[in-house]
């Protein structure tokens, strides 16, 4: 009988993340993954029943880790300035220190399994973020506005800067280096924009 091997499982996940980032969901395959991880396809099928099973399980794991990192040291009861600072720190840390994972999770979120994955993973994430925004409105720190507008203003600039850092800026040749100093400067402007 074949048995599970934790080391091998970790390698499989690592290679799956690499393949998803490189080839996308459509280009991803079990045979390709087995080859990349240097294991037999039969071994891979011991761990996962098929591609969809693998993508779903990996997606839930990545989603949980994303939420864990994003919520570290954060509470929905924090003030807008304090909480948003923590969120920016955590979210930029996640993208900069776990770039491949973050990109693979994006691929899965935009795949046919995206809805399943986001409904299972990070189930406690949304309520905390909602509580945070509602508290800020109640405490008159945040101007009431549709959720999408709030999200776009509160987090859009951060993700845009991180993207420029990872993929290059719109200026093209000049490499943009994201830094904490720039992050805090931008955050100050955002907090002004969100005030009632």
């Amino acid at each position, binding site marked *: 009988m074949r048995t599970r091997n934790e080391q091998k499982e970790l390698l499989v996940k690592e290679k799956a993340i690499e393949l998803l980032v490189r080839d996308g969901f459509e280009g991803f395959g*079990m045979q390709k993954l087995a080859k990349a991880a240097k294991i*037999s396809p039969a071994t891979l099928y011991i761990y996962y029943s098929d591609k969809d099973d693998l993508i779903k399980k990996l997606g839930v794991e990545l989603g949980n880790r994303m939420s864990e990192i994003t919520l570290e040291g954060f509470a929905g009861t924090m003030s807008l300035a304090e909480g948003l600072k923590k969120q920016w720190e955590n979210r930029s840390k996640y993208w900069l220190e776990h770039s491949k994972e973050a990109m693979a999770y994006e691929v899965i979120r935009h795949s046919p399994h995206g809805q399943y994955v986001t409904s299972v993973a990070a189930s406690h994430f949304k309520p905390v973020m909602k509580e945070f925004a509602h508290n800020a409105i109640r405490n008159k720190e945040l101007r009431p506005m549709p959720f999408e507008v709030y999200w776009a203003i509160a987090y859009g600039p951060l993700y845009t800067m991180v993207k420029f850092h990872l993929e290059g800026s719109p200026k093209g040749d000049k490499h943009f280096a994201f830094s904490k100093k720039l992050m805090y400067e931008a955050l100050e402007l955002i907090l002004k924009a969100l005030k009632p």
Partner: protein
Amino acid sequence: MTTAEQKVLILKSNISTYADLLQVRHPLDHHPGITRWNIDLDDCDHVIRIVTPNLSVSDIQEIVNSNGYQCSELE
């Protein structure tokens, strides 16, 4: 049922379409020795995955062959 006693059998097959799959679905669904099964139609080896406490690869081959398809252990 304790999962510790379950083993996984992996076979390649020529069950390549959903219509083929329907031909073997009934015998696999109703076999008392099969806990769970699936066939990955997307894969080039059309992998059959069987979770069973006591069946062997040759038992699965027998079921699949008697329904008009071929399969063998995937190395």
